[in-house]
């Protein structure tokens, strides 16, 4: 049974330096609060896995938490580049970052393979692409039935999956809806899972086919309303597009980035306090 815990305690007890960690979310339900807690606790040497690393990974990379990034698209959606990611990839600041690059179809399949306890995933989507030439983990296999050559990638196995969801009940059963990404697969491919939720309710009242993660596959559930901000939780909040734009300015130089992280993350106790500070500062920075 999942324990209902403070995010601070869950991260302290369940994430270790050097772990393979995925904070998943496909634009929707991105676990920003969980990412901030990793930064506050100074977790390091992490292998960060995610299909679409965006702002929270830019923050983790810029704060030196990551040793390696496994990804398929790294950018600020609708805005442009991730400046901290680029600085790490091109200049090794604040520390060198190893890069393992895939495509979306490949990574989605690799999560399924991890959740399925299979050694590898198969895809047809790499024909003609140069990505396999630069990633020795993308290899090929001949179909024993048809002889067709197909690309294979090792399954994704995580030490910790971190996701944000709309609801949990008091036992720790988790319900999410809307754009689901690979969150269910990430949790099932992980040894430990931390889920932050918008609210904890007596009964989930989920439809039989709803995306529910049973409490016994989740290690900890943490009540963090708005914990996806500036991403969103459908039914609770809207994507804060202005903040995504503001991030382009905040993150452009090492100095403005470091100052922002200090004031908003390192010097705050938790996500609730972060949001209070952000409301005060966003008049100037998110304008």
């Amino acid at each position, binding site marked *: 049974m999942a324990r209902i815990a403070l995010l601070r305690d869950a991260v302290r007890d369940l994430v270790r330096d050097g772990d393979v960690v995925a904070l998943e979310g496909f634009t929707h339900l991105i676990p920003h609060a969980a990412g901030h807690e990793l930064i506050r606790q100074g977790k390091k040497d992490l292998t960060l896995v995610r299909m679409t690393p965006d702002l929270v990974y830019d923050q983790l990379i810029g704060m030196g938490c990551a040793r390696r990034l496994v990804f398929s698209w790294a950018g600020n959606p609708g805005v442009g580049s991730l400046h901290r990611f680029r600085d790490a990839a091109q200049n090794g600041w604040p520390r060198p970052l190893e890069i393992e690059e895939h495509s979306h179809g490949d990574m989605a399949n690799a999560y399924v393979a991890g959740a399925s306890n299979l050694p590898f995933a198969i895809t*047809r*989507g790499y024909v003609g692409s140069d990505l396999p030439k630069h990633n020795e983990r993308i290899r090929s296999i001949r179909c024993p039935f048809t002889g067709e050559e197909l690309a294979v990638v090792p399954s994704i196995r995580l030490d910790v999956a971190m996701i944000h969801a709309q609801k949990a009940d008091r036992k720790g059963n988790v319900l999410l809806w809307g754009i*689901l990404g690979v969150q269910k697969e990430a949790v099932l491919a992980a040894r430990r899972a931390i889920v932050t939720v918008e609210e904890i309710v007596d009964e989930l009242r989920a439809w039989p086919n709803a*995306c529910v993660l049973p409490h016994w596959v989740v290690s900890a559930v943490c009540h963090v309303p708005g914990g996806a901000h500036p991403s969103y939780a459908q039914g609770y*909040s809207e994507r804060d597009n202005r903040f995504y734009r503001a991030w382009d300015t905040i993150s452009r130089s090492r100095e403005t980035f470091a100052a922002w992280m200090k004031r908003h993350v390192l010097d705050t106790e938790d996500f609730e306090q972060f949001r209070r500070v952000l409301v005060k500062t966003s008049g100037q920075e998110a304008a």
Partner: protein
Amino acid sequence: MIAERGYSPSEMMTVAAARMLKDGLVCFVGIGLPSKAANLARLTHAPEVVLIYESGPIGAKPSVLPLSIGDGDLSSTADTVVSTPEIFQYWLQGGRIDVGFLGAAQIDRFANINTTVIGPYEEPKVRLPGAGGAPEIACLAGEVLVILEHDRRAFVDKLEFITSAGFLDGGDTRRRAGMPGRGPTAVITDLGILTPAPATKELTLTSIHPGVAVDQVKEKTGWDLKVAEKLETTRAPEVHELAALRDLERRTAEKHSSRSTQGYKP
């Protein structure tokens, strides 16, 4: 910039690209310019087009253009929303997509696309966002439309890095490589429309937008661009097309500049 013609080159590009999308087709849409053109098609001549976004919405009918691939408007207006593994496995790899609609940072003579790095992969001059779902869309969709602005830095003779395959080295190299999809059928830019020559698969200028000179297109292309014997002139945007596009962009700007306050209270 709106020229004396009453529309901008960028508007001409979006309208020309939208017209390429036939009503009723199933289209896997990239974010940005492809999404703008595909939604313009849906709001004008193609109300029954099915728009699929890689974040999972199938049959999305957004009221404004999404800023990100996973805006809430995409999922709340969709016929259904499926998980990311499902969208790539069942719907794209399963062969359900008629048209893949892509953007590009760079494109070459044979319509191969780069969105990964400029310069050597190990020590890039510019690190771009990467592949996303483009390699599999380019490989697996029935056909591919590409939309991007015409610029010498973007239209290069030969790519240093192919993220997503067009016709590889031209001729029948794509077919022999075993890709299920037919590959790019048109590249739409702010200057004209390029289509692959039937045998060589080399991108050829087959339609030029009104007021654009052939030399201008050649100058902005990084290889010796071939021009079709019967070069057509693209039909200028119709009043209703421009009105629909501008209305869509106005609504989009209003929506994305408003601050969300929900879930954001101290």
